[in-house]
């Protein structure tokens, strides 16, 4: 399923647009990384796409259907989002939380069907949270919590996955694990839009990078095309070394300490 932003604008306070006339699209099965400095509109763009915020102007479409016109349940079947951080109100267990990903599919009074159970357990295995099953989500570390909410989003069986800084709290192994899950799901048709600070990780994960600053798209293209010294200096105000891994050919970005311009 593809997602399109058409001439999207949004401001929290009048006169200070956070997203300004953004138009872009993510084709089915592609992963696009949103990068840019703090306050550049990455998270706001994701929250507009997820229906948490309503745009002042413009529209978001999923395969041509306007998000604003979809029933909440229908939207939740097509699109899932993993937020940056959240506080959970009560001591729900990890499994109970992941199971909430099935809400869009089940009636209020229905018990879990075998299909629900499979989706829940598969998502928990993907996100490597099976061992945490009976733990309270409030007792977990930041990274474990992030994986639980990824599992919840995967249990939703979405066609589009939105991720807001998904790797912030993850250790190295789980960062790679996280991204390999995402890549594997993409191979099966999942469309991914993620906001990410780690440019090297972004370069390794996504098909395309959209560089934002002040709510406006500055660059849109392949990681190699977008992640250049000049672009990074222009948008982040930082000097960076760009290199390629000698064996894998992977691109990496090394911000130079003390060299901000």
């Amino acid at each position: 399923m593809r997602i399109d932003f058409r001439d999207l604008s949004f401001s929290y306070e009048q006169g200070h647009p956070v997203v300004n006339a953004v138009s872009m699209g993510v084709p089915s099965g592609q992963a696009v990384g949103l990068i840019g400095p703090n306050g550049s509109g990455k998270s706001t763009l994701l929250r507009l796409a997820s229906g948490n915020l309503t745009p002042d102007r413009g529209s978001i479409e999923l395969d041509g259907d306007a998000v604003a016109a979809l029933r909440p349940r229908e939207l939740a079947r097509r699109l899932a989002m993993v937020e940056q951080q959240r506080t959970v109100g009560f001591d729900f267990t990890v499994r109970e939380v992941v199971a909430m990903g099935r809400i869009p599919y089940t009636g209020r009074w229905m018990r879990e069907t075998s299909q629900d159970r499979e989706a829940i357990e598969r998502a928990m295995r993907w996100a490597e949270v099976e061992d945490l099953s009976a733990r309270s989500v409030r007792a977990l570390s930041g990274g474990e919590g992030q994986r639980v909410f990824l599992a919840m989003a995967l249990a939703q069986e979405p066609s589009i996955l939105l991720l807001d800084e998904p790797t912030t709290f993850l250790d190295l192994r789980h960062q790679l694990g996280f991204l390999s899950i995402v890549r594997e799901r993409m191979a099966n048709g999942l469309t991914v839009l993620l906001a990410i600070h780690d440019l090297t990780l972004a370069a390794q994960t996504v098909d395309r990078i959209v560089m934002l600053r002040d709510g406006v798209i500055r660059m849109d293209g392949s990681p190699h095309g977008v992640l250049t010294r000049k672009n990074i200096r222009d948008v982040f105000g930082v000097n960076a070394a760009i290199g390629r891994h000698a064996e894998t050919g992977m691109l990496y970005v090394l911000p130079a300490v003390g060299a901000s311009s």
Partner: protein
Amino acid sequence: MRSWRSSTVFTEPTTSLVSSARRRTTWLFGILLVLTFGSVVVGVAVGPVAVPLRRILASLFGYEAGLSAIQEVIVWQLRLPRTLLGLLVGGGLAVSGAAMQGLFRNPLASPYVLGVASGASTGAALAILLAGGMAVLLPVGAFAGAALAVLVVYSLARPGGRRTSIFTLILAGVAVGSFFSAITSFLIFLSSGGEKLSDVLFWIMGGLGRADWAGLAILAPVILICIGAIFYFARDLNALALGEETAQHVGVNPETLYKGLLVLTTTLTAASVALAGTIGFIGLAIPHIMRLLLGPDHRRLIPASALAGGCFLVWSDLVARTAFAPAELPVGVITAFFGAPFFLYLLRSKGAKL
């Protein structure tokens, strides 16, 4: 869209974990149901006038029980309506508390957090002091006062119909509550002592002494419908515990949830206190205790709170009317006096998992 459904086969089901939790739930509900029925029987059986248990059971189940005329009145006109009011009010306050805590995602919320109790007290005080002779006016006044307080809170909290902030609501509730408390205190000051004053104070502390079938006929449907409707939102409250935004991601509209539940909980609270007064502690503690025993899932928490709150109030009332018989203690004294230590014990033994 579903292309990846078949990509892996699931191997290790966590069913044993799920089924042990389910067994525990079944047990607890079984115990609560038996306890509820037992509470009705004991509530009717115990009192200054002894009535044999066998005859009470026969009478309750509609057989010819051979009760004397006085016993008949005591069982059917005094103790049974009183016990049923206890079940309804206790259940109503506990469910209202569970819903408020879920809605505000805060374990400190109680049914009275939006000023309902203060408004109801002012209404009740006015009814007693101005029209003391007319018993009908007391619940009407209390309900009207509660409704007025909540309406003021809502209108303050959303100027121009903008989106309601939960914090603004709570602050407005505290402010309006203080205002109405001031009015009530002023009314008490004006009353210059006497029997009416003790009536007002007794109502505020809460009691089931005003129970009758006429009152039950009005309150029971309101309380039961509100509890049922709140139960309808149980799963949405679960999702809300993960945050407004996450709730929205799984298709729950927080705005609808807030609007619906605020109306339901305040109506439920107002109906619960109308006859019985502002009984404390139940609305705060019973949902907690049930959460400690059953976990936070509102689909279990709400019905369990309804039953446990009802039982707890019936037993508290039993103590209130027998401990110093023929004098009657305000039941609010008992709910807090026995409930609080038990609650503290549970907190300690369960490791303060609020």
